[in-house]
């Protein structure tokens, strides 16, 4: 007999080939990976909640209703739009960095404070 497959142990298996790290500090990359996995789970929860809410609107809920729920094209679009908004919110720091590319010489609040302190 072969060993039964253990999904918990095997689902996250490392692929063959050394993993690249990109950030200067690999700890930051680890935290980022964990954060994104949490973000994923929150998205999953939000989608489930959305299902429950929409079902509640129409009738009482059962487990089977939730498992088999099919959003209408409109509902699916609304969910998709939520995803876009959600990601934009979590990854806002990159948006800021991109916007700042146009403003390489923008002063910091400290700079302005110093400047204002010298006014007059």
């Amino acid at each position: 007999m072969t060993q039964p497959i253990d999904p918990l142990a095997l689902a996250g298996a490392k692929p063959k080939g050394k993993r690249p790290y990109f950030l200067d500090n690999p700890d930051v990359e680890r935290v980022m990976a964990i954060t994104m996995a949490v973000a994923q789970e929150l998205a999953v929860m939000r989608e489930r909640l959305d299902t429950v809410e929409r079902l509640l609107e129409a009738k009482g809920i059962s487990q089977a209703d939730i498992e088999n729920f099919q959003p209408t094209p409109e509902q699916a679009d609304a969910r998709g739009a939520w995803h876009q908004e959600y990601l934009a919110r979590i990854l806002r720091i990159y948006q800021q960095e991109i916007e700042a590319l146009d403003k390489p010489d923008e002063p910091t609040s400290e700079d302005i404070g110093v400047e204002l302190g010298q006014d007059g």
Partner: protein
Amino acid sequence: MTDKTYDGPPDYRLVGEHGMFPRTTHDEKARFNFLAHLNRHLASRILPGVKTAYETRIEPNNPVPNHRNQVRKQLLKDPLFQHWSAQRRNTMELRQQAGRWVTLRQAEAMNAKARDLTEGDERLELDPDLEIPPYLAKIDHHCMPGSYHDELVPGDVTGPANYDCGIFVTTGGGLGRFNDGGGHAVVKWMKTNRPDFAPKRILDIGGGLGQNVLPIAQAYPDAEVVCLDTGAPSLRYGLARAKEMGVDNVRFVQANAEDMSRYPDGHFDWVQSTMFLHETSVKSMPKIMKESHRVLAPGGICMHVEQPQYSPDMPLYEQAIRDWDAFYNNEPFWTKMHELDLDQWMVDAGFSRDELLHGGVAAVVDAELFPEHANDDVEDYGRKAAWHIVGGEKKAA
């Protein structure tokens, strides 16, 4: 939220659930939805910023590069490229984990179903003694643990099932419900450009689980079609999948395309591959191309479908970004393959210059289900479902 019409990835529930398709719970579908959106966000919202960072703070402050590797090394020092890369790699890892969870938790049922559908069917020809070529054995391509060939238990199909249910995510649905947009594109090209072509025998090399060869088999129902691959799990899943989808004219054959001596000269009227060459090696390619030429009948057509080659007029920045998968997504031969002179390789394999064939094809997907892909302008360099054909037409004897 704005009142703009929604233009993002389709809901995962639109994926085509054929009989072999792994079952997914509500939350597993939601997980795939999140990952499709994350991929799309990285490609459409972050990657353009990397380009701006390159133009505004890398190019002006670094020596002028003369090769894409120099661009890549300059990019590696930039924090936005670092983060985009770390996110993209992590998203790939999350996608594998999500898909593997789905298939491994139902491994016994799936493997049993595949066994019931394929046992004793002579259209599955496996070769347990086949040696897996080193370019496949050394590394798990696109970070897919176990690659195309490993079996967790005898008769395992969880690897290809993971590929089948998760690729919708990586491409944001861009390959269509059954991930077969490439196959449909090839059929469309053939029906448009060679309307009278009536192949009797068709060979798909490196056909994997056969998703792209099924539309070809359906478009030419009288043809005998062969899906040839080194990976037994893919082929086993492929036959079971084809049967569940009602396609009966495809054989799934385990063999190495470097040696197709099981077939006589001129056996096939159409020799085909999609997204295959970049996963081989520079040593194996001449053998594969020679064999493809040899088994091709006079009057027959050979077509390899791939991402576009790096040409001198492709900007070095674009080349460097397209190369990302080669370095960071376990596609080690990607970079070399995309710089080769494929025409020359076809000529070395036996085609004359005037027999060569070129073309472009874009994934054909159901525009009603995936309207945004009908005119999708998000460029995720190296992943967009728009390909080049390099091929040859053997003159009739």
